[in-house]
C-alpha cells in the first residue's frame, strides 16, 4: 500500500488529478483548495525525495509502462538517479516557489492548478523515455507556462505569453515532425530502442529527422538569437513564476536534450556551438541590463547555454563520466542560485539594479544576495566552482582551447553584471529596500544553505577532504555567527584561531612553501594584530578577515592545482568583500573583482592546459609539462601578474589599496599581494627552473614588465596627494622589482626576489600601519592637510622614517641589500637595460618618499592638529615588531639571506658566497654588518662633536612660524607649508608621457564589451512575428550547419 503510494508514476497522476480537482474544490471552499495544492506539492516532493535517497543507496532504476500496453498509446517512464535528482530539485523549487505566489494564488484556483500541471509536465519531460510522450509533456509544460503568464492579464504579460506560445509551438511542431520521421525510420518511439537501431537513422530523412528533433529541443532552451520570446517573460511574471520558468522549465528542456544527445552524436559540435554562442552572447547582452529580472533572465539563458556546451563537449570527447559532475554541478548551482535570486528579486521588488542601493543596511538580505551571486559567478565552495573547474580541465585535456577561453570570457562577463548589481547593494542609502515578510526569506536561505551543502558534497565526491578544504569558509560562517560579540573580542578570537590553525600547517612546510609560510602567516599575523586598535564592532569585518587569513593557510597547504585555485578564489572573494567595507571603496570594487577574476581564470586555464598534457593536477607535476610549457607558463604568470599589479594590468590596485579600511590596506599590500609572488615563484619553480619545457622568452618579457612596473609605479606615486594612494603606487613599483627578480630565474635573482618580498612586507606593513594611525588621528588622507606632525606623533614618524629608508635602498638599512642583490642579479644575467631602468625607478622613488615624510611630518603643522595625540599603542605594537625585524636584518643580513638561500637550495648553481659577514657575488661584494657599523661610527662622531659644541652655544628652541618667509613671519600654516602639487615641475618635464594610457585602454575594453552587448541586443525587437521568424531562420541555420545543404 505504502509502496504503491510512493510509485513514481504518482508524480504524474497526483499532479494531474489535483490539477483537475482544484478548480472544482475551489468553488466550494478556497481553503480546501489551498490545502489540496500544498498537500499535493508535498506529496510530489516526498515521492521524488524518497526515491532519490533510495537510488542514491543503490536501488535499481524504475521503469514504468502504464495501462499495460506499449507506447505511444501509453506513458513510458524511466526513473533513475539523474531523473530522481532533477525531479526532486524541480519539485523543491516548485513548492518553495509557491510560497512566493501566495498572493498570486489567492482567489485563483486555476493558477494553482496550472502550476501543479507545470510541475507535472516538467517531471514528465524528465522521466519519459518515449519521444512522443516527450512531445506531449513539452506541450503540457508550454501550455501551463502560457497559462501562468496569461493569468496575470496585464498587457505586458499577455504579450509576453503570446510570443512565448508562438515560439514554443513552433519548437514542438519541429519536434513532432522529427519524431514522426524517426518513427518512420526506426519503427519505434522509444529512445532506448532507437539507440539500438542508430544505423537506420541515415540518409536525407535521417538527417532531417535528427535536425528537427534537435531544433525542437534546442529552441526550448532559448538559444541566442532565437530567444527574444523567452526573455520578456522573466520581466513580466511574478518572481515565483519566473523562478519556475528559469529553473524548472529549463531543467525539463535540458534534460530532454540530455536524453536525445545519444541519438545525435554527429551533431554534437553544432550543439556545443549553439550552447557556447548562447553563453557568450547572453552574457555580453547582460552587461547592458539594468533591470534585475531581465538581467537574471539573460544569466539563466547563459547558464543553460553553458550546460548545453558542457554536455555536448563532454560527449564529443568521450568523457561522459564527467557529465554528472560538470553538468550536474552547473545544473544544481543554477537551479538553487537562480531560483533564490528570482525569489529575492521578488521579495525586495525593486526593478532596477541601481534601486538596490542601501541593501547593506539589511545584513541578512545582503548575505543572501552575496551567497547566491557568489555561487552563480562560480566562486568556491559552491557547486558551480567545482563544475566549472572540471569543465575547463576536460576542455583543455580535449584540446579545445577556444572553448576554454570562451567559457572563461563568458563567466567573466557574467560576473561583471552580477557584481555591478552587488556593488549597488553595497552602497549606503537613506532608504534601504524593504522586505515585508521576513518569512519569505526562509526558502532563499534554505537554497543558500543547500548550495553550500552541495558544494561540500561535490568536494568530497572529487576526492578532496571537504571538511579540511572548506575550513576558511566554515571559519567565516562561524565568525559571522559570533558577529554580535564586542569588536576586540572578535579580533582576539580571529587571531587566536588563525594562530592555532596556521601553526601546525606552517611547521610542516618546506622550501619555498616554508619561506612563504613565514611571509604570509607570520607576517600576516603580525600585521593583522593591528586590527586590535579599534574597539568598535566592525560588522562583517572579522568573519571576512578570518576567511582571508585561513585561505592564506590553505594556499600554502595546497598540493594540487585544484586546492591552490580553491584557496586563491576564496582569497579573492574575501579580499573583495573586505575592500568593499571601506567607505570610499564602492567605485573601485568592481574593477578589483574583474581583474581578480580575470587573473583567476587565466590561472585556471593555465592549470587546465597543464592537466591536459600531463593528466595530473599535482602542482609538482607542472614540471612535466613540455609541449605546452610556454602556454601554461604564460597563462599562470599573466594571471599572477594581474594580481601583482604589473604595469598596464594595475588599474585595480590604487583604488583597492587606498580605499580599503586603513588597517586592512596594510594587510592587503604587505601580505595578500605576496600571494601573487608566491604563485609566480611556484610557477617559475616548476616550469622555468625545473621544467621540461623552455620558457626563457616569457621570462624575458616578464623581466621587462617588472622594471617598467617599478618605474611607472614610482612615477605615479609622485603625483598623489592621497597618502594611501601614494603607498599603493609605491607597492606597485616595489612589486615590479620582485617580478623582474623572479624572471631572472637564477639563484641571485630568486634570493633577491625573496629578500625584496620580505623587505617589502616589512616596510610596506610598517608604512601602511603608520598611515592608518595618521588617518585615525587626523581624519584625512590628503597629505597637504597635514604637516609638522613629528612632534605630535614621534613614534609614527620614526616608523615612517625607517620605512622610507628601508624602501629607498640607502645603506645601511635593508633596502640596500635588495638593491645590491637585484642589480647583481641583473648584471649577472646580462639584463643591462633593465638595470638602467631599475636605477632610474629607484631614484624616482626618492621623490615620493621625501614627499611622504616631509608633507606629513615636517614643515608647518596645521593649527587644528596642535593637540593631536600619538597613534593608539595597539597600532604601534606591530610597527615596533616590524622595525625590530628591519633593524635586525639590517645589522645581520645573513639572518634573512640564509633562510632564503636554503628555501631555494638545489634548484640553481650557487652564485653567492659568504665570507664571514661579507657576501660575495661574481661581480661585487657587500658586508652589511660592517657597513652599518661604519655608518654608525661616521654618524655618531659628528653627533658627539655637535653635542659638545652645543654646550657653548645657547640654543634656543623656537616655536612654529619662527621663520621669515616672503618678507614676513607667516601666521597660518596653510600659506607656508610646501605640500600641494609638490612635484609640479616633474609633471611639466614629462608632459604627455604621463597620460593615463592603461586606464584609457581598459576603459576602452569596457566600452567595447558594452558595445558588443548593445549590438547583439539589436536583434531583440520585442515583436512576436520577428521572433517567430528568428526561430525559423535559426532552424535553417542549424540545418545548414549540420551539413543539410550537402
Amino acid at each position, binding site marked *: 500500500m505504502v509502496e504503491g503510494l510512493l510509485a513514481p508514476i504518482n508524480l504524474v497522476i497526483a499532479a494531474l488529478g489535483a490539477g483537475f480537482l482544484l478548480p472544482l474544490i475551489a468553488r466550494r471552499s478556497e481553503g480546501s483548495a489551498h490545502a489540496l495544492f500544498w498537500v499535493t506539492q508535498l506529496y510530489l516532493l516526498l515521492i521524488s525525495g524518497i526515491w532519490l535517497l533510495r537510488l542514491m543507496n543503490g536501488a535499481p532504476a524504475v521503469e514504468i509502462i502504464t495501462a499495460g500496453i506499449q507506447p505511444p498509446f501509453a506513458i513510458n517512464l524511466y526513473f533513475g538517479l539523474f531523473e530522481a535528482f532533477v525531479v526532486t530539485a524541480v519539485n523543491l523549487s516548485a513548492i518553495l516557489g509557491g510560497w512566493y505566489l501566495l498572493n498570486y494564488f489567492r482567489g485563483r484556483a486555476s493558477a494553482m492548478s496550472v502550476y501543479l500541471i507545470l510541475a507535472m509536465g516538467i517531471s514528465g519531460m524528465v522521466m519519459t523515455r518515449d519521444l512522443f510522450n516527450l512531445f506531449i509533456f513539452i506541450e503540457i509544460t508550454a501550455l501551463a507556462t502560457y497559462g501562468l503568464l496569461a493569468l496575470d492579464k496585464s498587457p505586458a504579460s499577455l504579450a509576453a505569453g503570446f510570443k512565448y506560445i508562438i515560439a514554443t509551438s513552433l519548437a514542438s511542431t519541429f519536434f513532432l515532425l522529427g519524431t514522426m520521421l524517426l518513427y518512420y525510420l526506426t519503427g519505434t518511439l522509444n529512445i532506448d530502442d532507437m539507440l539500438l537501431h542508430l544505423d537506420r537513422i541515415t540518409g536525407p530523412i535521417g538527417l532531417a529527422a535528427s535536425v528537427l528533433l534537435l531544433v525542437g529541443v534546442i529552441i526550448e532552451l532559448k538559444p541566442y538569437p532565437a530567444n527574444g520570446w523567452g526573455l520578456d517573460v522573466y520581466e513580466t511574471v511574478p518572481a515565483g513564476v519566473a523562478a519556475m520558468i528559469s529553473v524548472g522549465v529549463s531543467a525539463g528542456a535540458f534534460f530532454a536534450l540530455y536524453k536525445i544527445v545519444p541519438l545525435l552524436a554527429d551533431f554534437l559540435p553544432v550543439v556545443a556551438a549553439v550552447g557556447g554562442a548562447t553563453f557568450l552572447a547572453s552574457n555580453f547582452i547582460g552587461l547592458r541590463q539594468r533591470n534585475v529580472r531581465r538581467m537574471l533572465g539573460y544569466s539563466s539563458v547563459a547558464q543553460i547555454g553553458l550546460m548545453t556546451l558542457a554536455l555536448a563537449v563532454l560527449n564529443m570527447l568521450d568523457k561522459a563520466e564527467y557529465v554528472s559532475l560538470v553538468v550536474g554541478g552547473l545544473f544544481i548551482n543554477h537551479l538553487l542560485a537562480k531560483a533564490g535570486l528570482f525569489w529575492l528579486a521578488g521579495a525586495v521588488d525593486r526593478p532596477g539594479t541601481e534601486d538596490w542601493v542601501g541593501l547593506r543596511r539589511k545584513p541578512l538580505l545582503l548575505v543572501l544576495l552575496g551567497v547566491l551571486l557568489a555561487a552563480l559567478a562560480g566562486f568556491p565552495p559552491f557547486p558551480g566552482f567545482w563544475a566549472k573547474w572540471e569543465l575547463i580541465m576536460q576542455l583543455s585535456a580535449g584540446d579545445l582551447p577556444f572553448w576554454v577561453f570562451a567559457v572563461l570570457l563568458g563567466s567573466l562577463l557574467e560576473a561583471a553584471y552580477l557584481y555591478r548589481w552587488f556593488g549597488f547593494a553595497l552602497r549606503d542609502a537613506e532608504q534601504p529596500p524593504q522586505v515585508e515578510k521576513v518569512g519569505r526569506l526562509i526558502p532563499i536561505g534554505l537554497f543558500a544553505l543547500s548550495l553550500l551543502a552541495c558544494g561540500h558534497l561535490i568536494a568530497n565526491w572529487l576526492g578532496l577532504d571537504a571538511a579540511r578544504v572548506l575550513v576558511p569558509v566554515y571559519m567565516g560562517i562561524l565568525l559571522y555567527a559570533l558577529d554580535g560579540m564586542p569588536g576586540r573580542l572578535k579580533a582576539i578570537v580571529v587571531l587566536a584561531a588563525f594562530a592555532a590553525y596556521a601553526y601546525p600547517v606552517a611547521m610542516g612546510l618546506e622550501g619555498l612553501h616554508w619561506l612563504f609560510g613565514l611571509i604570509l602567516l607570520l607576517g600576516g599575523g603580525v600585521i593583522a594584530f593591528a586590527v586590535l586598535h579599534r574597539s568598535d564592532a566592525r560588522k562583517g569585518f572579522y568573519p571576512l578577515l578570518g576567511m582571508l587569513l585561513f585561505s592564506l593557510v590553505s594556499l600554502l597547504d595546497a598540493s594540487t592545482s585544484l586546492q591552490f585555485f580553491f584557496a586563491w578564489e576564496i582569497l579573492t572573494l574575501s579580499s573583495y568583500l573586505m575592500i568593499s567595507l571601506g567607505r570610499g571603496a564602492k567605485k573601485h570594487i568592481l574593477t578589483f573583482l574583474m581583474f581578480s577574476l580575470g587573473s583567476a581564470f587565466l590561472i585556471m586555464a593555465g592549470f587546465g592546459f597543464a592537466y591536459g598534457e600531463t593528466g595530473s593536477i599535482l602542482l609538482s607535476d607542472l614540471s612535466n609539462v613540455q609541449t605546452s610549457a610556454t602556454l601554461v607558463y604564460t597563462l599562470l604568470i599573466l594571471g599572477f601578474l594581474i594580481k601583482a599589479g604589473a604595469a598596464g594590468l594595475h588599474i585595480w590596485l590604487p583604488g583597492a589599496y587606498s580605499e580599503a579600511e586603513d588597517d586592512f590596506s596594510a594587510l592587503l599590500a604587505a601580505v595578500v599581494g605576496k600571494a601573487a609572488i608566491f604563485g609566480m615563484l611556484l610557477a617559475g619553480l616548476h616550469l622555468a627552473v625545473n621544467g621540461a619545457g623552455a620558457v626563457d622568452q616569457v621570462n624575458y618579457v616578464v623581466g621587462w614588465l617588472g622594471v617598467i612596473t617599478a618605474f611607472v609605479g614610482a612615477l605615479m606615486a609622485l603625483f598623489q596627494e592621497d597618502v594611501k594612494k601614494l603607498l599603493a603606487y609605491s607597492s606597485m613599483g616595489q612589486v615590479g622589482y620582485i617580478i623582474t627578480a623572479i624572471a631572472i630565474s637564477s639563484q641571485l635573482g630568486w634570493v633577491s626576489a625573496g629578500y625584496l618580498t620580505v623587505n617589502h612586507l616589512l616596510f610596506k606593513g610598517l608604512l601602511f600601519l603608520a598611515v592608518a594611525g595618521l588617518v585615525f588621528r587626523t581624519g584625512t588622507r590628503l597629505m597637504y592637510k597635514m604637516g609638522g606632525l613629528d612632534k605630535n606623533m614621534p613614534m609614527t614618524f620614526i616608523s615612517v622614517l625607517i620605512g622610507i629608508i628601508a624602501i629607498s635602498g640607502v645603506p645601511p638599512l635593508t633596502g640596500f641589500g635588495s638593491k645590491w642583490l637585484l642589480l647583481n642579479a641583473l648584471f649577472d644575467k646580462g639584463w643591462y637595460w633593465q638595470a638602467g631602468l631599475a636605477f632610474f625607478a629607484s631614484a624616482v622613488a626618492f621623490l615620493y618618499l621625501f614627499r611622504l615624510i616631509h608633507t606629513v611630518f615636517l614643515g608647518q603643522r596645521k593649527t587644528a592638529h596642535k593637540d593631536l595625540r600619538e597613534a593608539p599603542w595597539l597600532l604601534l605594537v606591530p610597527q615596533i615588531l616590524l622595525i625590530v625585524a628591519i633593524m635586525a636584518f639590517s645589522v645581520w643580513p645573513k639572518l634573512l639571506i640564509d633562510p632564503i638561500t636554503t628555501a631555494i637550495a638545489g634548484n640553481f648553481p650557487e652564485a653567492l658566497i659568504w665570507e664571514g659577514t661579507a657576501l660575495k657575488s661574481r661581480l661585487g661584494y657587500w658586508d652589511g654588518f660592517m657597513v652599518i657599523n661604519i655608518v654608525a661610527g661616521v654618524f655618531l662622531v659628528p653627533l658627539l662633536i655637535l653635542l659638545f659644541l652645543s654646550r657653548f652655544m645657547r640654543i634656543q628652541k623656537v616655536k612654529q612660524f619662527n621663520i621669515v618667509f616672503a618678507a614676513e613671519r607667516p601666521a597660518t600654516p596653510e600659506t607656508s607649508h610646501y605640500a600641494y602639487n609638490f612635484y609640479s615641475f616633474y609633471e611639466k*618635464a614629462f608632459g604627455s608621457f604621463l597620460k593615463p594610457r592603461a586606464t584609457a585602454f581598459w576603459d576602452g575594453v569596457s566600452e567595447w564589451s558594452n558595445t558588443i552587448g548593445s549590438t547583439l541586443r539589436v536583434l531583440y525587437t520585442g515583436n512576436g512575428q520577428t521572433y517567430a521568424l528568428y526561430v525559423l531562420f535559426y532552424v535553417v541555420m542549424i540545418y545548414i550547419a549540420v551539413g543539410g545543404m550537402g
Partner: protein
Amino acid sequence: MEYWAVKIGYFLITLGIVTVYGLLLGATVARTMAKVQGRIGIPYWQPFLDIIKNLGKRTAVSHGVMFYLGPVFRIAGGIGTLAFIPVIYGSEMFSNFNFAGDLLLAIYFVFFGQLGMALGAGESGHPFSAIGVARGLGQMTAYEVPFALAIIAIVIQYDTLSINEIVAAQQGGMTNWTLFTNPLAVVAAMLAFLGMTAYPPFDVVTAPNEIPIGPPTEYHSSFLAMMATNRAIFAGAKLILFMDLFFGGANGLIEMVIKTWAIYMVAVVVGASFPRFRVDQSIRFFLRIPTLIGIASIAFVQIFLIA
C-alpha cells in the same frame, strides 16, 4: 683591535687631507669664477675662516630634533661616501673602508646625507627649504639616469663592481683609462657630473645668487659650519669616485690632486659659460642627450668591447 685602530687612524688622515683639499678647491673655484666676472674674489683661506667663524657663534636656534640632526646626517653622508671609496690605488693607507662594499654601496650611500639633510631642512618649516629639496631631488633623479648608464657600461666593460678592480684595469698608461677605452660612458657621466655639482646651468636647486633656497635656508652657526665642511668632503669624495672610475685612479696624492682638479674644472668652465635652466628644463635635458649617450655607451661596450 690594533688593526682597527690603524685603519681608523689612516682614515682620519685621509679625511683630513680630503677636507683641506676640498676647501681649497672650493676657494679656487670661487676665485676662478670671480676672475671670469672681472672681480678679484676671496682669498684661498676664506672657506677655513668661514668655518671657524661659524663654529665660534655663541647663539643658535633649533626647530626640533630633526633640524638638529640634519647637518649630522649630512656630514655623515659625506664622510661615509668617502669611507667606501679607495682614494689612492694600491695604497693601504688610503684604501679607507672600501672592503665593506663595492661600487653600488658608494653610489647608494650618496643619498644618505641628502635624505637626512632634506629631513632637517624640512623641519625648519621654511617653504624655501622644501622647494629647494624638491627641485634638488627632481634634478637628481634625472642626472642619475646618464650616470647609472655610464656605471652600467663600465661594469660590463670591466666585469666587476669592485672599485679597486676597476682602477686596476685602467693601469698601464693613459690609453687604458676609461676616458679612452669607453669615451661615451665618460661623456655621459661627466654630463651627469655637471648636475651633481649644481653649478650653472643646474644651480636652480639652491639659487645661490638671489634668495637662498634649499637646505641652507634656515641653517646657521655650527650647523652651517658642519654643512660647509661636508661640502668640501663630499665634493672630494665624488671627484675621487669619478677619478677612480673614469680617469685611471691615482697612484699618489699629487696625481689625485691634479686629476680631481681637472675634473672639477669641467663643471666650473661650463658653469661660468651658461645661464641657468629651470628645473623642468634640466630634467628634460638630462633625459635627452646625456641619456642617449649613456645608452650608446652600453651598446658600444656590448658590441665592441665584450663581444
